[in-house]
């Protein structure tokens, strides 16, 4: 038996924890640079606010309904997510963190435990200890657990837990779930299924295996097995090493200023280098990309990217910034182009221990590596980016818009919750 635990409206719930006067009020959280709606409280959903709606298009709706708007505060969400996950792992150590607000628990070894009771206890503990409401679905496979979680939210909101314990309960849930809402079904397959008169997950589970193999490929067959209670999706207890790492942001405002874009690219490159060092990896190629705003039809459009191979695989800030800026110099076009977005991707990431040294590489890296280590140590102690490369600058001219940012209540001593007593 597997459980999927999912935080309800996670980002909105994080904001409410420190502003309880927003309970029962519509709350939305916007993406980076205050772009689109990426999280909604139930009240905001009820107003018909749709995920991904650009914020500027909804301003009137927000004002009229007194919707509370937040910029995304990933520092806060990250800390609360870690608290939730660690609380869960104290119940069941076999856990796969699936996303910032979801985790699978492997309950297969708990033969004698009443899993419904356990689910209710886990839910109660997370709500009390961390303050984030969660829903729990328990079922024989990951796909069914995901479905049970959704079913719990829709049908058993007050309990918040659904345990698909036997065939009757599983069938009840399958019959309730439309094909579009099955985990892992893309839009194309959903259309195909509908055209064949297959409307619910129950219909899918009842299909003959030959039909599934013929029409839905191997992936479909795996899902079909999962729906029939046969676990077919691997467990990833340790997240796999990433192949590529991307850091990109919109610029706070459109810009044709080379110096500002250079500053942004340097910072993105430095962030990539730090991510690599933190996981003990190096990259073999660096990609830079820039693009104008395609929605501004009256502007001239341009977007370009370039990949540079590294002479020797690296994770040094200095070198990755070097490659990135070299690339930027090549692709950057001046004058009438107003850039909206730029970013750095590092490719072909491998473990640091597997580096092959280039025969013609004459750089002595020992010194640079020591420097990087010292920088990381100081930055760990004194705060992110205390020491940085000069090109990164300190004024952050490319800074994102974040007009509705809440405080970093749990990670910054100067921003802790202040209470009038």
């Amino acid at each position, binding site marked *: 038996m597997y459980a999927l635990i999912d935080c309800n409206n996670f980002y909105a719930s994080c904001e409410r924890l420190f502003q*309880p006067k927003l309970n029962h009020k519509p709350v939305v959280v916007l993406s980076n640079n205050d772009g689109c709606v990426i999280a909604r409280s139930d009240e905001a959903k009820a107003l018909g606010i749709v995920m991904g709606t650009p914020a500027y298009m909804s301003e009137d709706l927000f004002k009229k309904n007194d919707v509370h708007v937040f910029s995304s505060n990933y520092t806060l969400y990250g800390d609360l997510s870690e*608290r939730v996950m660690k609380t869960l792992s104290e119940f069941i150590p076999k856990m796969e963190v699936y996303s910032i607000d979801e985790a699978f628990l492997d309950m297969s070894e708990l033969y004698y435990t009443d899993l419904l009771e356990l689910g209710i206890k886990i839910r109660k503990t997370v709500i*009390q*200890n961390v303050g984030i409401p969660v829903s729990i679905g328990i079922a024989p496979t990951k796909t069914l657990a995901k479905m049970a979680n959704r079913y719990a939210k829709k049908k058993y909101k007050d309990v918040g837990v659904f345990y698909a314990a036997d065939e009757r309960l599983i069938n009840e849930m399958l019959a309730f779930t439309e094909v579009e809402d099955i985990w892992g079904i893309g839009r194309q397959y959903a259309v195909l299924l509908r055209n064949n008169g297959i409307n619910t997950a129950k219909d899918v589970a009842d299909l003959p295996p030959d039909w599934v193999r013929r029409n839905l490929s191997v992936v479909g067959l795996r899902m079909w097995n999962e729906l029939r209670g046969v676990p077919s999706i691997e467990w990833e207890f340790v997240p796999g090493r990433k192949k590529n790492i991307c850091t990109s942001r919109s610029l706070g405002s459109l810009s044709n200023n080379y110096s500002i874009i250079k500053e942004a690219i340097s910072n993105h490159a430095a962030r990539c280098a730090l991510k690599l060092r933190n996981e003990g990896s190096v990259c073999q190629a660096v990609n830079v990309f820039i693009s104008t705003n395609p929605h501004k039809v009256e502007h001239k459009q341009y977007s370009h990217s370039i990949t540079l191979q590294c002479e020797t695989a690296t994770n040094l800030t200095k070198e990755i910034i070097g490659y990135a800026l070299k690339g930027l110099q090549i692709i950057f076009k001046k004058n009438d182009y107003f850039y909206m977005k730029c970013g750095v991707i590092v490719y072909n990431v491998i473990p640091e221990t597997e580096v092959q040294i280039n025969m013609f590489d004459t750089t002595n890296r020992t010194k640079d590596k020591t420097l990087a280590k010292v920088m990381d140590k100081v930055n760990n102690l004194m705060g992110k980016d205390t020491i940085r490369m000069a090109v990164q600058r300190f004024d952050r001219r490319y800074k994102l818009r974040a007009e509705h940012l809440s405080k970093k*209540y749990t990670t910054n001593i100067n921003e*802790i*919750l*202040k*209470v009038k*007593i």
Partner: protein
Amino acid sequence: MKEILTETAISSFDFKVPAGFPSPAADYSEERIDLNKTLIKHPLSTFLIECEGTSMVNAFIPPKAKLLIDRSITPKNGDIVLAVLNGEFTVKYLKKNDFKCWLIPANKKYKEIEITQEMEFTVWGVVTSVIINPNDTKCML
């Protein structure tokens, strides 16, 4: 057996003594006191807040006091709690019996609050420590 002894001996010194006598304290070394461990029993459910106002001065909570709040503790009669009353945070003593519940300030200038059914009331967490800077305590004189 000999091997194990050597290993232990090395791990208790993390600095080298090139000459002279080894420190007689080495075998008795213990971890220095860590206030995080002492004050925070449940790190996952503990939060830090700062107070403004004087309603709790006689409970040694002057303005600017920092409070550790543990959400995992079930509040009982007599605890100092961070409560949410009609959407607003406050810190007070919690007094309760089987029928009723009050928020009690620790300053005579403030009134007790009896919790009624019309009020929306929850306890956010229980105060487990008060951290004050002596310079902020003058108002308590």
